[in-house]
């Protein structure tokens, strides 16, 4: 019992040391390094428009729909989001492969995207009809960007080539050629389209 009492005293003192070093000094050190050397990244890779107004983050997807939830034709559309691109929340649908609601959603999204872009349903790629894990995925596949080019060009009165050039600019291949997937950053792409005006 005496032994246990002594151990408790040691443990309490040691926890205080750990809280000071690991819980306060360590995160502050990393914050200092981040703010000094990686300022933009450590603050969330924020994007500004022409007027210097912050319009979002290059890493977080956002909605390109109107207030009623209808997709705006002049913007490339992102993947579906289970949290409606709310950055104070994050997460996926967590629906299983046989979930009737998920099956209905995918069916409906497929039809809607095909009609919206004027392509057959067979051309709608998987990422276009599935919600991401974070609900904040900023990227779409090049295939999903490709079926949206004509529609965006038409809505903006731009040539298809102009839009395609921008898509190419915001397309990233896999890191080192084999890590990850090719992707198009929708937020940066749409911002760049707006800046064209």
């Amino acid at each position, binding site marked *: 019992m005496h*032994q246990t009492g*002594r*151990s*408790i005293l*040691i443990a309490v003192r040691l*926890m205080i040391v*750990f*809280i000071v070093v*690991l*819980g306060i000094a*360590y*995160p502050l*050190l*990393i*914050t200092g*390094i*981040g703010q000094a050397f990686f300022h933009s*990244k*450590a*603050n*969330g*890779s924020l994007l500004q428009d022409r007027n210097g*107004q912050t319009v*979002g983050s290059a*890493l*977080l997807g*956002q*909605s*390109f729909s*109107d207030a009623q939830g209808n997709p705006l034709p002049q*913007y490339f559309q992102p993947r579906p989001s289970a949290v409606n691109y709310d*950055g*104070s929340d*994050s*997460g*996926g649908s*967590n*629906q*299983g492969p*046989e979930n009737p609601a*998920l*099956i209905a959603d995918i*069916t409906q999204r*497929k039809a809607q995207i095909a009609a919206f872009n004027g392509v057959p349903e067979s051309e709608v790629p998987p*990422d276009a009809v*599935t919600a*991401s*894990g974070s*609900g*904040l*995925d*900023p*990227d*779409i596949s090049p295939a999903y960007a490709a079926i949206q080019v004509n529609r965006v060009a038409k809505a903006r009165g731009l040539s298809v080539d102009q839009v395609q050039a921008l898509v190419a600019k915001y397309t990233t291949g896999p*890191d*080192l050629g084999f890590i*990850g997937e090719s992707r198009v950053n929708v*937020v940066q792409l749409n*911002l760049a389209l*707006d800046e064209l005006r």
Partner: protein
Amino acid sequence: MQWWMAALLLAALAVPIGLLYKPLGNYIAWVFTSPDHWRPERWVYKLIGVNPDREHTWHSYLRAVLVFSAVGFLLLYIMQRLQMWLPYSLGLPAVSPDVAFNTAASFVGNTNWQAYSPEKTMGYTVQMAGLTVQMFVSGAVGICVSMALTRGIAYHKRGTLGNFWVDLVRAVFRILLPAAIIASVILLTAGAIQNFAGFTTVSTVAGGTQVIPGGPAASQEAIKMLATNGGSFFNANSAHPFENPTPWENLFQVFMLVLFPFSMPRTFGKIVGDHRMGYVILATMATLFVIAYVSITAAELSASGTAPQLAGASMEGKEQRIGIIGSTLFTTATTGTSGGATNSMHSSYTSIGGMVAMLHMVLGEISPGGVGSGLYTMLVMVLLGVFLTGLLLGRAPVFLGKRLGVTEIKLVGIFILVLPVLALGGFGISMAIPPVRAEITNLSMSTGGPHGISEAIYAFISVSVNNGSDFAGFNANTPYLDTVFGILILLGRFIPIALVLALAGSFANQGRATSRASELPLHRPQFVLWLVILILYIAIPTFIPVLLVGPLAEGLH
């Protein structure tokens, strides 16, 4: 094509791990055998009142582990309950008693099961001074226990296992903290955030509004992966672009997760003076890892099931930049360690993919396992393998000069029973109590049918084996489940630790049993194969009945 990518990705992980195996393993061995104390460490020992040169018997070692964990548990509980008075609480209220209990148990138990949504529950002070601290020390406790067992095998007639306080301080200051600082900086270069900005609302490109979260995420992310914790700053865990912004960082996260667990067999070999045994353990861990990786990847690439077929690929719950293979490699690593971090939603995996993730956990987290806990759990399996080999060959079971007597084998036997008893017993008893069953089926399961059962089984396995990942559609935040899961986590963590330390104590008291010449042939590839089969054979049949009504039934849909 995709299989080539999968192989390349695995190679990109295996090469750095292989290159670091010797130097890192040797370094860890030096940390736990060096007689010299660094000056700052001496200050700490003086401050806390410990004589660093006094060694612990297994009783004292266990008492110190339990007391330290209990104190950490209480502090974390109190901190959450007083959240509203702490700085940088972001206006969040005190955490409710049952969530605070569950979370304290979960982080002290190196499980990091999260019944709460971090963005909506935990302010910065609790995340840093509470949760991040436990991520370091709970991982360190695992390393300490594995080193105590290693010393028990290495020592002859010494009786003691080292000093827990010294081991703990060294594990934190010589291993985890330096590694976490380096890893945090690498995460920052990728774009992980580290600030105290709170939530900012911006006007989006299309003229809507969006809330952008801030926070000290990179520092927490580093230790979350390195000490196989999994407790994330954000609800979406490693799927969140602020934690895991790029594909190469995703690979780096997997690397962090398996780095220490894969290096510890070298540490073991170094300390007991038998490097070949280190390779045997490494080979067994790696074989199981590759089997799991190939199985999960095959399941996800097959896109079987109605929804993946309809969509054209199993992309629900996966990030575009990471892709399917980056997700399955991560899932393999997180279920093979006590990680529990997720970069894709396991619940939306194909039914077989989700089932393999469960099977990988029920192996007991030995491929390569948690920091420390992976090594000691694997050593228990090795002891069982040695015992059975001895029976088959009609020779006395001896492992590195230690006799496996009745006491030792009883301890091994009980150890192996802990997981199935907790996971299946906990699930079975809960479902047998009518009001609890009603609550779980109506309130917790997101859907009826086999998928709902899968969600519940996954949760019971995950907490009992101290993993922490989940089928996140399952609402585990009910007073009953918060309490039961908290208890299962604590039992699943500390019963095995007690058994391992008892085993270590019993070995440390023994002298060298026989000359090396009469030892069993344990260094051959056949023994690795024998261990792999044994591990699969012990774990899988136990869980087959419950998997039949969950993922297998769903797959037959």
